[in-house]
């Protein structure tokens, strides 16, 4: 095997790129190969995650003790919104798009995405948008201080930074719809022989469902942002959200949450799909209830569109409407519960191997359940009126996004890292990363439930001294949580130089197509179009997967 074969798609394509770093990097920057674009998404996402993490650490330093500590209150006001913007739009969503770019075409047996150049363009919009959002700190009066929700009238009155932020949000939306169009076209039209829809791996399924969510919800956010920008730019002519001109500020909230509630499923469904790949591999058992797993994702997506007003229980909408939204919101716990129990049933009776990805998957199931349950608490109208805009909401969102999305992201990166780079990370360090992360997620965020119940509001610069000890615990937890992530990043970089070589089927028990080709995969994925061997997804007694060896009653 020659050197370039061993490096797969990482190897330079031209002689020029082989001899010079400059041309090699240029080859990546202009590459239309979904695997390379996927890796660029992941690197970009991690970078933004670090910046977003720094902002959150600034918040936690300020809140460590009561009173003004290290910054002005106007600067503090920009932090929660910019932290959320970076984490949601530039970290979680791009990383899942990146992992999807790498994995989905291979899982369905395709050589590339359906529109490679659209893919590249969609990626390069993101750094531009991130630069715009971050440059809000450089203009007079700084970044917008209205949180990531941008509610009018505050967002209408805000300074120039708000215009940069709005433009960045519209650009990010454009980028993610471009990716969604590409994923749907790829999955619907480019599957290999025998890869029918209900043979597709569940990660691919999750990207399909997510893409539909993006397609139907993101444009509504774009329309809200356009209206907001029109009102800001031409205050005499446009009064969409201005009650004095006959407008309605609540209209903005409806449009915003029509996107931003599905957005939380955009941020978690790929994680669900990913966990559905990790758990069967390390349980050495096929996924339990494959079809139900796919349908429950669809059910979550459909329900996700009709629950947005549960973010608006305190805006004065009619009680009857709130009751309907409360009921629908609680209904989402049903398909989510189906998924949790199907993962547990997959592990039940399996031959478990607790490698780092599996640890993150199991940790995710345990802690995401906490986040899911506090979601049900928040969904009930009377409780929400009490807890609205308190730290309870902060705790809930971080249990679903840090203990949910971030844990699954790590599970996915560890799981596919040997496939992406051909090298294993250091297993001991990976486990260390998992345990410290898990412990300090709970140290950081669990106490915030208590703070919220006691009535500490979110986004506040200063607070009552009685909350000081709990805030100090939360801050200490967040420092440890943030610093241990660098151990993981160091581990990944270390693996590139000194990691053990990975086989094609790096975990030995991978069943999907990406484990059939070398690690890292060659430039065009498959030397010739693969043929999928259909899997019986049923749990019949005669055929299909056995559930549990049943003791025969006769003996």
């Amino acid at each position, binding site marked *: 095997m020659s050197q370039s074969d061993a490096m797969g798609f990482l190897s330079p394509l031209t002689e020029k790129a082989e001899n010079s770093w400059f041309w090699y990097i240029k080859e990546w920057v202009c590459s239309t190969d979904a695997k390379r674009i996927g890796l660029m998404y992941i690197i970009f996402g991690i970078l933004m995650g670090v910046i977003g993490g720094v902002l959150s650490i600034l918040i936690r330093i300020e809140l460590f003790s009561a009173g003004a500590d290290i910054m002005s209150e106007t600067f503090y006001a920009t932090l929660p919104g910019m932290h959320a913007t970076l984490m949601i739009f530039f970290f979680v969503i791009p990383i899942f798009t990146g992992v999807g770019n790498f994995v989905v075409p291979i899982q369905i047996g395709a050589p590339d995405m*359906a529109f490679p150049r659209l893919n590249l363009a969609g990626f390069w919009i993101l750094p531009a948008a991130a630069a715009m959002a971050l440059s809000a700190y450089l203009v007079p009066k700084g970044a917008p201080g209205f949180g990531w929700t941008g509610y009018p009238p505050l967002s209408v009155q805000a300074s120039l930074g708000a215009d940069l932020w709005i433009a960045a949000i519209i650009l990010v939306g454009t980028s993610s719809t471009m990716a969604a169009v590409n994923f749907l076209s790829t999955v619907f039209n480019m599957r*290999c022989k025998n890869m029918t829809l209900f043979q597709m791996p569940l990660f691919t399924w999750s990207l399909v469902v997510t893409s539909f969510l993006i397609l139907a919800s993101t444009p509504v956010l774009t329309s809200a942002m356009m209206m907001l920008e029109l009102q800001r730019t031409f205050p005499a002519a446009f009064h969409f959200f201005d009650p004095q001109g006959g*407008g309605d500020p609540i209209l903005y909230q409806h449009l915003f949450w029509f996107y931003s509630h599905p957005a939380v499923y955009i941020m978690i469904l790929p994680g669900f799909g990913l966990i559905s790949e990790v758990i069967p591999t390390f349980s050495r058992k096929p996924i339990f209830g494959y079809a139900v797993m796919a349908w429950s994702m669809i059910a979550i997506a459909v329900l996700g569109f009709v629950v947005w007003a549960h973010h608006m229980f305190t805006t004065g909408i009619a009680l009857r409407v709130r009751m309907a939204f409360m009921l629908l919101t609680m209904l989402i716990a049903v398909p989510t519960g189906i998924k949790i129990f199907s993962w547990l049933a997959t592990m039940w009776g399996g031959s478990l191997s607790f490698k780092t990805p599996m640890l993150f998957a199991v940790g995710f199931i345990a802690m995401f359940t906490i986040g899911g349950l506090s979601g049900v608490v928040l969904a009930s109208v009377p409780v929400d009126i009490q807890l609205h805009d308190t730290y309870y909401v902060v705790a809930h969102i971080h249990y679903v996004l840090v203990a949910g999305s971030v844990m699954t992201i790590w599970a996915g990166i560890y799981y596919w890292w040997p496939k992406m780079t051909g090298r294993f990370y250091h297993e001991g360090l990976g486990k260390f990363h998992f345990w410290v992360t898990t412990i300090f997620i709970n140290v950081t965020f669990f106490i915030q439930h208590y703070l919220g119940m006691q009535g500490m509001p979110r986004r506040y610069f200063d607070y009552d001294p009685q909350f000081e000890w709990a805030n100090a615990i939360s801050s200490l937890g967040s420092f440890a949580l943030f610093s241990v992530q660098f151990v993981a990043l160091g581990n990944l970089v270390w693996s590139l130089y000194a990691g053990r070589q990975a086989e094609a089927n790096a975990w030995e028990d991978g069943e999907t197509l990406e484990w059939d080709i070398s690690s890292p995969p060659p430039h065009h994925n498959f030397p010739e179009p693969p043929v999928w061997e259909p899997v019986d997804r049923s749990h019949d007694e005669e055929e299909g997967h056995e559930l549990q060896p049943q003791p025969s009653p006769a003996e």
Partner: protein
Amino acid sequence: MAAQVEAGAENLGVENGKIGMWTFLVMDAMTFAGFLAGYARLRWSPGSGWPMPYETFGVIGIQLTAFNTFVLICSSVSMVHVLAETMKGNLKRAENWMLATIFGGLFFLGVQGYEWTHLIMDKWPHMLSAGAAPPAYNSNFASTFLNLTGFHGAHVAVGVMYNVIMYLGLRRGKIDQDNASLIEIAGLYWHFVDLIWILVFTFVYLI
């Protein structure tokens, strides 16, 4: 130019491009849905003070736009002819029909520009100078009107450019019988813009 990516063994029986356009149109329709939902919320909330379109535009204004709508629908018909002639291989005829389609789009934009000028200069002077008194009715009538017709007008402008590119492709022999699906995909977009206009026209002018 990157190689065209082929459909896989399991597919929906159409080119990738057509699925791409359909999914894009879903997204675009949702953008208009956002604007239209905003319109509906502002107009049909109690005591909104929304004027009757007939009184604001006047009968002539609505008739002019109705004629404009007719022209846009005609350009959709001529787009169908472009595809039919391309598929038959009559490229010269296809080119002429495409010119008619482009002309229809430009005519539509021209009339819309005329209408905007008239409305902003004569009916809604408060938009340009802060001193001018706003109209007696809910001024969001004007805001949503400009928002919806403007966003649609931008779509028509993009469609005209798209059609010009297709026209040049036909002229230079890059599009013929074998890849007529390129015309079909452009047609999907053009018919979609037409369909959206019928919705916008109904909402903003008629009811």
